[in-house]
């Protein structure tokens, strides 16, 4: 076998290797490669190229792209452009953040209130801070209703003196992030309730809010019906 034929066979092998990882050039080609430095070089390059092409791409950690985009917007706008008119053109000063995980799973058509978990967050007095609620949904839910109910001493930025705010949104399957910029108005303990409704399903979570510096008991408050 000559160099031309060998290189042709290397190309054939490369094409086949895309679908059959165990393949390798035929014995005659390999014998030629062993004896021919130019073809050895070509073969080595071909093997390397193939290995590199077959490397799987690194995958980002869950939620990173969402976090990165939000952070990019916040760094450029101080969060003033993050929230659109639908949720109040809220110029929230996003500082310390609490992450509260809410689960919304189970069998469609059933209540999943029993899997709710309460959580707490410390707030700096008179300063808007964002409480983020993660909603894990096993399936996409169109026009789910989200209701926020606030204690008297808590205010949602952009909604002064309004204790109940309700709107509809589409939840996608997987984790959905709900960001609520809230302001604690006095030194007392406070809370906000987040309720989700979709068809027969409902789910509620209470987030206890206390001034920063005070101790907090997570999960101490009862789940609202």
């Amino acid at each position: 076998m000559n160099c031309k034929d060998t290189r042709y066979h290397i190309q054939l092998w490369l094409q086949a290797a895309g679908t059959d990882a165990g393949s390798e050039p035929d014995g005659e080609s390999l014998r030629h490669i062993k004896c021919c430095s130019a073809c050895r070089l070509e073969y080595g390059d071909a093997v390397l190229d193939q290995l590199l092409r077959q490397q799987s791409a690194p995958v980002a950690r869950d939620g990173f792209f969402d976090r990165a985009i939000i952070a990019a917007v916040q760094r450029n706008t101080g969060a003033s452009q993050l929230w659109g008119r639908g949720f109040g053109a809220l110029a929230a000063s996003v500082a310390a953040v609490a992450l509260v995980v809410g689960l919304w799973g189970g069998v469609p058509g059933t209540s999943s209130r029993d899997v709710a978990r309460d959580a707490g967050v410390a707030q700096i007095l008179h300063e808007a801070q964002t409480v983020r609620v993660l909603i894990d949904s096993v399936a996409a839910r169109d026009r789910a209703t989200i209701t926020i109910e606030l204690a008297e001493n808590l205010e949602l930025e952009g909604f002064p003196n309004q204790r109940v705010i309700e709107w509809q949104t589409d939840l996608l399957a997987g984790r959905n992030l709900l960001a609520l910029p809230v302001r604690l108005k006095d030194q007392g303990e406070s809370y906000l309730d987040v309720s989700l409704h979709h068809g027969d399903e409902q789910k509620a979570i209470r987030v206890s809010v206390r001034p920063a510096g005070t101790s907090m008991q997570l999960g101490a408050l009862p789940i609202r019906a």
Partner: protein
Amino acid sequence: MTIVNRLSFLSPSARRFDTLVRPHLPSLYAFAFRLHGNPDDAEDLVQEVLAKLYARASELAGIRDLRPWLQRVLYNQFVDGARRQRSRPEAAAPEHADYEIEDPTGDPGWHAEGAELSEQIDRALARLDHDQRALVVLHFMEGHTLEELTRVFDAPLGTLKSRLHRARAKLKHLLEMEPFAPGTRVVDIREQQPPADAMGNGQ
């Protein structure tokens, strides 16, 4: 993860930015990861790039082939960061000390399979110069032609070809991939007698 309010609550400008860049983020992250060799620095790099790009969101909308453009921005950001790192007195170590993972142990020939081989390739990539590494990643792993990459690296085709040649040679050396070197898969047939007419040399 999906932002509940991404569609309904993000401001129009934030939504436009999201729509423009999101399809390219997996590729950008993969590129950043290959450049840095770890997820934390990769996330920082992508985050830094997005923060810079947001201010240029209107410009992004006018770019016809956005992905190579974004990759170029990310690469330049990476190079700037590497330069700053080198300029610090405490960072006087060899260029790739940050990426160096322990040398392959045992017999690291390219007969290795699966995850082991993948790790060997990652380690070898980390030991390339960053311009070689970026070229290898974008050409072989992201599938860009060298012609396309002349715009990403702002370098002529000939420069990229010779850079790729050097990168290949170094990778083969690092992976101990010289055909018929001990430990390669080809060793399986070494016991076979080559036919007399196969003893030519590069004809």
